[in-house]
């Protein structure tokens, strides 16, 4: 019996060491692999985010140089409030460019929608056929953006009359900025073309009244 204990003791210590090393390999190896995986994932995520940020900063820096001009163009073409009045003012301004007579202007009630809101504007144009056609083409080239829904042209021996139904649009401004980690794309070729088209449109003239500078009232008793 004593001999067996000695034999077992002589075998148990190396066996214990071996088992301990196997356990160390399994447990430690697993922890190590998990940690390496997590670190690599973290680095990959940081690299991706950094590259998104770098691209975003570069795009925005380029854009900020010209942004004020772009904002005026796009927000005049598609304002955030009912553009009916501006559109009617553009129609009236058009008579200075094309000699036609405008009558029966009326604006329908606004139709507010989530994406695009619109209002219908009806008016009659009187003049020669060529002038009427010119005028209608002028109307479709003004800012704010409109869509000519229907034109009815009647021509007599002396004059022509067009009854025009147009829709004028507006849309509320975006209220939220995208998440900081969300990438942004530069203005595409289509968007650049659209921007150039909007810039070419006849812009409305807004009169801005600057406040007058108030001067202190003279004291009549100390003149």
């Amino acid at each position, binding site marked *: 019996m004593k*001999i067996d204990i000695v034999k077992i003791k002589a075998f148990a210590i190396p066996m214990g060491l071996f088992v*301990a090393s196997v356990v160390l390999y399994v447990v430690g190896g697993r922890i*190590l692999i998990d*940690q390496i995986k997590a670190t690599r994932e973290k*680095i990959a995520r940081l690299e991706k985010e950094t590259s998104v940020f770098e691209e975003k900063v570069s795009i*925005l820096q380029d854009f900020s140089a010209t942004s004020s001009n772009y904002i005026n163009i796009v927000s005049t073409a598609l304002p955030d409030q009912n553009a009916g009045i501006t559109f009617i003012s553009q129609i009236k301004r058009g008579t200075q460019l094309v000699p036609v007579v405008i009558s029966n202007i009326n604006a329908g009630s606004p139709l507010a929608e989530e994406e695009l809101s619109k209002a219908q504007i009806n008016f009659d144009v009187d003049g020669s056929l060529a002038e009427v056609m010119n005028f209608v083409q002028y109307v479709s080239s003004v800012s704010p953006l409109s869509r000519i829904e229907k034109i009815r042209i009647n021509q007599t021996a002396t004059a022509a009359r067009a009854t025009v139904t147009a829709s004028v649009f507006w849309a509320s401004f975006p209220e939220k900025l995208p998440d900081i980690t969300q990438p942004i794309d530069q203005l595409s070729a289509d968007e650049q073309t*659209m921007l150039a088209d909007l810039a070419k449109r006849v812009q409305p003239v807004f009169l801005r009244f600057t406040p007058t500078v108030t001067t202190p009232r003279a004291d009549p008793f100390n003149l």
Partner: protein
Amino acid sequence: MVRINLLPHELSPESGLNKIANILKQSAIYAMIVFLVLGMGAAGFFIIMGSQAANLESRQAALKNSLEDLSQAEQSFVLVKDRLAKSKQIVSQTKSAEMLVAMDSLISKMPPTVVVSEAEVSSEKTEINFLAKNSTDLPQILGPVLTQFGFSKIVLKGINFNPASGYLVTLEVSL
């Protein structure tokens, strides 16, 4: 060096068992050494990766600051993108303006004896009434309509004759 074993002979383990125990012991020692080497390698890896992550984090923090400074530009950018997308939506549905240009060009090609008495242009269809004094003008009306402008659909809705006014040709065209 002389190896002295003072234990009684019967107490020493069997040589086969002793061999296995030695192999296990050596394997365990080698495994520990390899594990230590691997551990040191892993520690090196973590140090390098840690410094890389720290660099990226500091770069990211600087970029985030720049983005905060550019938040006004970002607002403008989002606004411009939004307006352009919606403008495209409006313009892409506007066929009447193109039709008007085509109609204007068509009218300019008509002989002086042909007049457009009535026309209706809408996004769905365009109907034009031409008034011609003589029947010889009829081919001159239909010729440009058929060969030019690339209308996708041309419907001759009617030809009426009135001795007082002449021939009334009604056409429905679509782009």
